[in-house]
C-alpha cells in the first residue's frame, strides 16, 4: 500500500499537498474500500447464509423472499435498521452508549489489516501479525463492557461482565494454541506462517503432529467463545438476559454489534486457515501473477468460509452452556490441554528439528479416517430416519 503511494508520488501525482495528508487520505480510502466492498457484503451475506443454514438444520426454509432465494435479505434488514429511531435511554451514559458500537466495530475491522488473502494481497504484513490480531480482537471486550455499563440496565451489565470474563478466559487457550503454530513456523508474521506450510494437506500445520491437530480444535473452540458464538453466547443469552449487552440498543447501533459478530466469524475462519490450513498456498499451476493471485484468493476464501460454515453448523447443533460450565471448560480442560499441546510440540521439535514427514502423512490419514467415520455416522442417521432427501440448496 505504502509502496503504491510512494510510486504515485514519485511519478508526480498529488503535487503541492503535504505528504502525510496523502498517506492519511490513502489509508482512509483503503479502509473505505475494504469496508464497503468486502466486509459489509461479507458480513451481510454471512448473516443471510447463517439463517438459511440454521433453518435447514431445523427443517425450516429460512429467509427466501427478498431477491433470489432471499440473498438480499441483509440489505433489507440494513435499510430497516438505518431508518429506525436511534434511542438512547434517558438514564444511560450518553457518550459511552453512543461510542461503544464503534469500539466493537473497530476491534473487528482492524483485524483485516493483517489477513493474508494472497501472497500479494495483504494490507500490511506486520512482523508481529498474529500478536497484533490477538491484541486488537481484545478491543471488542472493551466495547462490550462499555455497552453493558453505559446502558444502565441490569441485563446489559450482566451480559457485559459475562462477556468480559469469557473473552479474557478464552484468550489463554487461544493464545497457547497460536503459540504452538508460532513454535513450528518460527515467525509471527502472517505471511511467514503461511510460507512455512505447503499447498498439500500433509504440509499444513494442522497435520504437523498430533499436538497441532488438537491445538487447531482448541483454537477454533476458543475463537468461537471469543466471538460470542453459540454454544458460548452467554453474554446475549436471550433466555436469561433478554439480549445481554445489546438490550438497550436499537437501529444502526444495534446492527453494528451483529455486523461485528458476523464479520468476526469470517475473521475466525481466516485466522484458522492461516495458522493451520496452509492459507493461500496453491499448487504451482500457473506463472501468471494475476491468475495466481485470483487462485490464491479463491483458495483462501473457500478454506476460511468452510470454517464459517462449521461455526453456523455448530450453532445449529449445540445448546448454550452454563456460565460455570463455560469457565470449567476453559480453565479445567482447555488451558491444560493447550499447555500439553504447546509442550508436546516443543518436545517434537527437539526430537525432529526438521519435522517428520511420515508423521504428517500419518496424521493426514487419521484425519481422513475421522472424516470417513463422520460420514458413516451421517449415513447411519439418514438410513435410520428414512427421511425424504432433498439435496438442492434452494427451495
Amino acid at each position, binding site marked *: 500500500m505504502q509502496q503504491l503511494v510512494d510510486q504515485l508520488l514519485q511519478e508526480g501525482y498529488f503535487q503541492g499537498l503535504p505528504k502525510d495528508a496523502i498517506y492519511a487520505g490513502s489509508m482512509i480510502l483503503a479502509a473505505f474500500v475494504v469496508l464497503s466492498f468486502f466486509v459489509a457484503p461479507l458480513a451481510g451475506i454471512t448473516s443471510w447464509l447463517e439463517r438459511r*443454514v440454521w*433453518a*435447514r*438444520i*431445523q*427443517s*425450516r*426454509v429460512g429467509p427466501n423472499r427478498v431477491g433470489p432465494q432471499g440473498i438480499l435479505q441483509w440489505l433489507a434488514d440494513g435499510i430497516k435498521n438505518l431508518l429506525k429511531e436511534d434511542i438512547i435511554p434517558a438514564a444511560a451514559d450518553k457518550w459511552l452508549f453512543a461510542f461503544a458500537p464503534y469500539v466493537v466495530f473497530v476491534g473487528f475491522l482492524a483485524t483485516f489489516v493483517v489477513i493474508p488473502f494472497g501472497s500479494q494481497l495483504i494490507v500490511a504484513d506486520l512482523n508481529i501479525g498474529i500478536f497484533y490480531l490477538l491484541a486488537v480482537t481484545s478491543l471488542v471486550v472493551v466495547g462490550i463492557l462499555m455497552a453493558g455499563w453505559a446502558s444502565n440496565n441490569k441485563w446489559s451489565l450482566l451480559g457485559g461482565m459475562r462477556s468480559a470474563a469469557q473473552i479474557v478466559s478464552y484468550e489463554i487457550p487461544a493464545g497457547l494454541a497460536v503459540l504452538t503454530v508460532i513454535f513450528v513456523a518460527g515467525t509471527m508474521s502472517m505471511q511467514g506462517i503461511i510460507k512455512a506450510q505447503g499447498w498439500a494437506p500433509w504440509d499444513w500445520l494442522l497435520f504437523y503432529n498430533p499436538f497441532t491437530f488438537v491445538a487447531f480444535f482448541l483454537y477454533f473452540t476458543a475463537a468461537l467463545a471469543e466471538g460470542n458464538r453459540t454454544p458460548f453466547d452467554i453474554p446475549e443469552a436471550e433466555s436469561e438476559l433478554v439480549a445481554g449487552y445489546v438490550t438497550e440498543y436499537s437501529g444502526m447501533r444495534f446492527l453494528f454489534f451483529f455486523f461485528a459478530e458476523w464479520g468476526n466469524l469470517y475473521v475466525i475462519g481466516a485466522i484458522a486457515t492461516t495458522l493451520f490450513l496452509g492459507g493461500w498456498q496453491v499448487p504451482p499451476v500457473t506463472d501468471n501473477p494475476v491468475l495466481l493471485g485470483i487462485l490464491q484468493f479463491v483458495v483462501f476464501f473457500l478454506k476460511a468460509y468452510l470454517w464459517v460454515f462449521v461455526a453456523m*453448523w*455448530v450453532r*445449529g*447443533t*449445540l445448546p448454550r452452556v452454563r456460565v460455570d460450565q463455560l469457565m470449567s471448560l476453559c480453565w*479445567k*480442560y482447555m488451558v491444560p*490441554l493447550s499447555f500439553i499441546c504447546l509442550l508436546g510440540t516443543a518436545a517434537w521439535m527437539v526430537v525432529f528439528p526438521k519435522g517428520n514427514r511420515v508423521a504428517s502423512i500419518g496424521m493426514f490419514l487419521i484425519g481422513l479416517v475421522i472424516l470417513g467415520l*463422520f460420514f458413516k*455416522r*451421517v449415513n*447411519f*442417521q*439418514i438410513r435410520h*430416519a428414512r*427421511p*425424504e*432427501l*432433498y*439435496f438442492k440448496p434452494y*427451495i
Partner: protein
Amino acid sequence: MTALVKYVINIVETVTTIFEGMAITFSHFMRRPMTIQYPDRIEKPVQETLPLRYRGILEVDMDICTGCLACERVCPITCITIGIEMNKETKQRTFTHFDIDICKCMYCGLCAEVCPTGSIRHSQEFEGACYNPAGLVRHFVTEPVPLYKPKKGGETDPGLATKVEIGQKYLDEFATPEEKVGGAGAEEG
C-alpha cells in the same frame, strides 16, 4: 487416580457426543424442510388439502334449507340469526335473512350436526381476514327465498337432488363418529 480417569472420560465424552450431534444435524441438511410456504409457494391451495371433517367457516346452501331453526336454537353463542316471514295470501313462508356472525362463531359444529338436510356445514375455507368486523357477518339471503320442503319418496328436481345428496353425504361423514361413517342414519332412524 479416579479423578484423572473421570477427567479423561469427560474429554472423550465431550468429543464423541459433539461428533455424533454434528452428524445428526448434518443429516438434516439433506432432508426436505417441513415448511409449507403458505400462501403462495404451494402446489395447490391449502383449502384443497384440508381433511374432510375440517371445521372451516360455516356456509349454508339456501336451496335445501328447511327453515327448521334447529341450528339457531342449538348455537351456544347465538351467532346464527334467521328471519322467516309468511305471506298471508299465498301461505308461502320465505326467509328474510339468514346471517351467521363468523366473528362470534366458535366452530363447535353443533349446527351442522343437527341440520336435517345438511344445508349448513363447515367449508374448507378459513381465510376470513377483513378490515371491519361487520365484514365477517355472512349474509346468505339477499332477496326473500322460499323454504325448502322435503318431498316424500325423494327429490325429483335433478338440480336439487344433487344438493340434497351432497348435504346428506356431509351429514353422514361429519355428524357421525369416524368409525361409523355411512351407518349412522340406519342406527338413529
